């Protein structure tokens, strides 16, 4: 291969270092108006009305909008269409948008927002998931499954209780994983304009232009064919720009009403209110093992604090259980999860979507098991890795697994066997592993359409243009597209013009989420490029009077493999092909293979392939103050194949960075004011100063090992890298702290205060840990019972009931979310 596998400048690199990349807020149009939003200052209230007269009369104001202007609900999942562009009868968190002012300048819009007079009747404040369990009324949403529990799910694969009853060892631990947020440096921005022909164009910093397209069509009651969404390159996403957002729909509606372009750029504080970040999760994990620590059965309960709206939350809930099985062999497995509604910004998908929390629990518990049974934690893991090309207890189809080699690499690099458990007090090593999916096996809304499409245009100039709906969010998807097409056609990635993220110009790609783009767009690109290559090859073969099989494509030439000087330039080859076949264009598309899981809810978790990571982390802990420094990271990632190793390494290091932030300091913390004095529940510090994101001063050296074991499902064998390498970081830090000072922090983040508290507990002769001591009573319903493959199961549940009708949903939206 000429392009693939060698580190190289990515195709969008030059624009990014010259300041030429046009992010959403960099766009302006003639006659453009500005929008600002009034957001609720109450956590939970009935909206009795908004007096808009003074604002409408203010200088420069062109339009004031309220909930009455946007009566149609939307939401990312068909099962939770619970959002409106502006509040209807209710506000549900501080920051919930209530009204909008559109004016000739941002200053004028902001000044007029101050003149809006909303009238509210306060309602009970629900602070967290425990509060939601204790406070079934008033319901935040009437469609909640019960009280303020949005959703409960449960599965049992084999007779878990029987395994526990006969197991030599049972480990029972409770954990809490605090919420945190994506914090892309770019603040969300959107520009909407009505085109000359009356159609609507929306430029937005979105990871999911296709889903935004659908939401706009629904919420604005407009034909989708009259809406064009252009996802501008995102200044970081990490999952935070994956939902359709209020402000996007508001400025689109405002542009339609004023006939003028309308822009909004959120303040940093408003970005914290958009959120959709990591759910805070309470967990109880029970694991039965044999005498050596091999897992016999696992029983997991999770309770998610979902915030005020559905977002991806139902999928997040499933994800707290679905991927527990694809790393280690788990013969029997029970998972029960629930998500609560609370009066806080909605949680959703952040890098690792729903899986870092249970991964933390599992990897910390494995460390405890190793210590309790006198085993080396690396060996304990190596002995029970999932087998390649196998089905798990919950019917996930695992393909290649490079995890063993990842573990070997980090263990050797860190000299883990020689040093673990043997460092002086205050220094420690921890190990943890993980896996992640390469795209969800099913789309968010049920259909049998391709998940990604790529279209190529070739013309007599020798130029190649690649069109795809995929969105460049910094991960390098444009470069993956150009690199794969260039490899197949034997040209340079910089010869290709890439047109992405535009719903008018490119075929649908579902978006930059769930680590799906490299695999799905990549396979579509290979198909389109392969078809183009066939067209060119047949024309060149005719011209050179050679069999097609003797043609090579490289270095911008199509040539005889046996006599390489004989051939055509790529441009001449395209001319030959256009002469022979007429105007040249090819398409490719990709749809994942069908899942083996046939039970309800089994749509969350299946993926064409799984990536694997292992990390060892070294820490230094001050035994007096609990101060914690991470001094070195070793990480191995099973990438399948590196398409551009410079980009892959960057994704691994970036995941390590973000994981360290979560492990050590990042926290979506809220303040409930004293209930006797106030109903207030506010984000404690919605700012880049007080929400602590690690600086250069916190990033330790990191040694990265890329493990290549090409997966047949991936394009040229490639698997994902954007999310998986984040997952082992948090548990590896926790395990290293234990090695350093002998205490367990069963919570994230792992702060010096908690380490000190655990040390004090130990000094008093109590268990040397901090963390939850139990798990609340959720009132679990009967789980779906599915026999594992090795117990004669066929992927179906034995006790599945017909799907419950949802009167508030129209028929086609009645699908299980994916």
């Amino acid at each position: 291969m000429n392009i693939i596998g060698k580190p190289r400048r990515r195709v969008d690199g030059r624009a990014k270092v010259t300041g030429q990349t046009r992010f959403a807020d960099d766009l302006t149009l003639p006659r453009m108006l500005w929008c600002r939003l009034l957001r609720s200052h109450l956590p939970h209230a009935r909206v009795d009305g908004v007096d808009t007269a003074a604002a409408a009369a203010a200088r420069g104001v062109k339009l004031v909008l309220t909930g009455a202007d946007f009566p149609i609900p939307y939401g990312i999942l068909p099962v939770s269409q619970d959002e409106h562009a502006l509040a209807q009868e209710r506000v549900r968190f501080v920051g919930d948008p209530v009204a909008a002012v559109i004016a000739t300048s941002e200053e004028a819009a902001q000044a007029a927002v101050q003149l809006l007079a909303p009238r509210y009747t306060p309602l009970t404040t629900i602070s967290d998931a425990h509060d939601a369990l204790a406070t079934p009324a008033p319901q935040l949403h009437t469609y909640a499954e019960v009280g303020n529990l949005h959703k409960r799910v449960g599965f049992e694969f084999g007779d878990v209780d029987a395994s526990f009853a006969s197991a030599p060892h049972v480990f029972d631990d409770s954990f809490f994983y605090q919420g945190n947020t994506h914090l892309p440096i770019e603040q969300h921005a959107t520009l909407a304009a009505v085109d000359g022909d009356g159609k609507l164009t929306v430029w937005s910093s979105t990871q999911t232009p296709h889903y935004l397209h659908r939401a706009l069509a629904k919420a604005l009651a407009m034909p989708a064919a009259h809406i064009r969404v252009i996802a501008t390159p995102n200044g970081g996403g990490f999952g935070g720009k994956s939902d359709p957002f209020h402000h996007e729909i508001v400025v689109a509606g405002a542009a339609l009403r004023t006939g003028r372009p309308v822009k909004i750029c959120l303040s940093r504080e408003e970005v914290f209110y958009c959120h959709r970040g990591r759910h805070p999760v309470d967990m109880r994990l029970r694991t039965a093992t044999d005498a050596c620590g091999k897992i016999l059965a696992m029983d997991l309960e999770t309770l998610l604090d979902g915030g005020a709206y559905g977002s991806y939350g139902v999928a997040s809930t499933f994800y707290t259980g679905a991927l527990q099985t694809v790393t280690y062999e788990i013969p029997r497995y029970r998972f029960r999860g629930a998500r609560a509604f609370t009066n806080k910004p909605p949680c959703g998908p952040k890098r690792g979507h729903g899986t870092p929390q249970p991964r933390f629990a599992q990897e910390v518990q494995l460390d405890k098991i190793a210590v309790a049974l006198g085993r080396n934690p690396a060996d304990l893991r190596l002995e029970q890795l999932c087998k390649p090309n196998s089905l798990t207890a919950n019917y996930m189809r695992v393909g290649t697994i490079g995890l063993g080699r990842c573990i070997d690499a980090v263990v050797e690099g860190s000299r883990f066997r020689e040093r673990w458990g043997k460092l002086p007090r205050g220094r420690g090593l921890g190990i943890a592993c993980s896996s992640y999916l390469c795209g969800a096996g099913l789309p968010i809304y049920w259909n049998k359409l391709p998940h990604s499409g790529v279209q190529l245009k070739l013309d007599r100039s020798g130029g190649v243009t690649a069109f795809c709906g995929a969105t460049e969010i910094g991960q390098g998807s444009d470069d993956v597209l150009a690199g794969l097409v260039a490899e197949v056609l034997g040209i340079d990635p910089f010869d290709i013009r890439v047109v992405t993220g535009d719903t008018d110009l490119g075929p649908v790609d579902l978006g930059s989420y769930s680590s799906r783009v490299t695999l799905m767009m990549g396979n579509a690109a290979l198909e389109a490029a392969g078809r183009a290559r066939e067209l060119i090859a047949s024309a060149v073969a005719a011209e050179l009077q050679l069999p097609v099989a003797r043609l090579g494509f490289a270095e911008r030439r199509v040539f005889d493999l046996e006599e390489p000087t004989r051939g055509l330039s790529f441009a001449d080859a395209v001319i030959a092909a256009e002469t022979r076949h007429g105007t040249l264009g090819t398409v490719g598309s990709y749809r994942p293979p069908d899942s083996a899981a046939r039970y309800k809810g089994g749509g969350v978790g299946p993926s064409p392939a799984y990536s694997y990571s292992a990390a060892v982390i070294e820490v230094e802990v001050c035994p007096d103050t609990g101060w914690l420094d991470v001094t070195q990271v070793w990480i191995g990632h099973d990438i399948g194949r590196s398409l551009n190793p410079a980009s892959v390494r960057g994704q691994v290091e970036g995941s390590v960075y973000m994981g360290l932030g979560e492990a050590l300091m990042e926290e979506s913390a809220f303040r409930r004011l004293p209930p006797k004095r106030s109903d207030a529940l506010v984000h404690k510090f919605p700012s880049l100063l007080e929400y602590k994101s690690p600086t250069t001063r916190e990033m330790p050296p990191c040694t990265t090992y890329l493990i290549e074991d090409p997966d047949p499902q991936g394009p040229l064998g490639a698997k994902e890298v954007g999310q998986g390498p984040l997952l082992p970081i948090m548990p590896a830090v926790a395990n290293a702290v234990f090695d350093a000072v002998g205490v367990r922090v069963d919570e994230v983040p792992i702060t010096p205060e908690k380490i000190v508290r655990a040390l004090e507990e130990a000094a008093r002769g109590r268990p040397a840990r901090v963390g939850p001591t139990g798990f609340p009573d959720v009132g679990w319903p009967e789980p779906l019972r599915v026999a594992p493959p090795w117990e004669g199961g066929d992927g179906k549940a034995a006790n599945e009931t017909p799907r419950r009708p949802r009167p508030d949903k129209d028929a086609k939206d009645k699908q299980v979310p994916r």
Partner: protein
Amino acid sequence: MRAPSFRWHAATSLADAARALAAGGPRALLLGGGTDVVPAIKRRQYVPELLISLRQVAELGRLEPHGASLRIGAGVRLGALAADDRLGVGHTALRRAAGVVASPHIRNVATLGGNLCLDTRCNYYNQSLEWRRAVDYCMKAPAGVALAAPAGGTCWVAPGSPRCWAVSQTDCAPALIALGASVTLVSAEGQRTLPLADLYRDDGMTWLTRRPDELLAWVDVPAAARSTYWKLRRRGSFDFPVLGVAAAVELAGDVVTAARVVLGAVASHPVVVPTESLLGRPLGDDAIAAFAELATRLAKPLDNTDYQLGWRKRVTRAYVVGALRELRGDDPALLGVLARRQAALIPA
């Protein structure tokens, strides 16, 4: 996030600035580097009618010997100050404090005078107008905007309290007080000089004894034989201190003949710790431990900054011990992981 409109005056001299300040009344605001004032204006903590820029006032940019002291103009930028050769070993505490304020970019603009006059800070106060509305505002800014005197409103840090508990988070003040600095305030009426410690009041709302018509012109900084400044913050950049320990000692042989220790960010003012117990004997482990106990008792952190208050109190002890051991001459390598966080202890 945009600033509201205001009138603008670029002062040309100290006298001109003082005149403009006197004429501007209570809604006139001085702009040094602007790195704290501009965000506060954007968040509508202040809504000034007039901004008086001090950038062109040449007198404020001076840095020169003055007798046995160093006279440093209030307009000297913190980055330049930390790198200035005229700050000798006798001014180590100041050099370190100035060098760890906020971030390098901010130190290129922020001034010494601005850091010394830094408004007291609080997680309930350093928020946008909209955020503060959600808690029905607080005592320091009961109608959204900061007031100098109580006019109702709750201090959410201590809801039963009649006073405001916002925190003094200047890095330079503890260091300069430890060095025995004095400060000169200038107004249209004249000028006065006072010990820097006397510039501060233990009150989150009126945290300075500076009159509204006075501006801080310069500080005179004596040298100390040995001094240091230790800063606690979650990250090695950006963050305000949640604890600062400044210490300066004079030694005769190994016997302490003079000592000043000042705690920052654990009260509404820099807290001067009485040092009698250290005098007349060497900095032995026992003396240091007893003194650290005393300092820890005087630290009154509250739940309005980063980190839990109990932990900040605990670290106060560790920091006082570490700072004094550093002054005693202990090898920094032996002072542990916390000491390594002191940027100044790491040779760049």
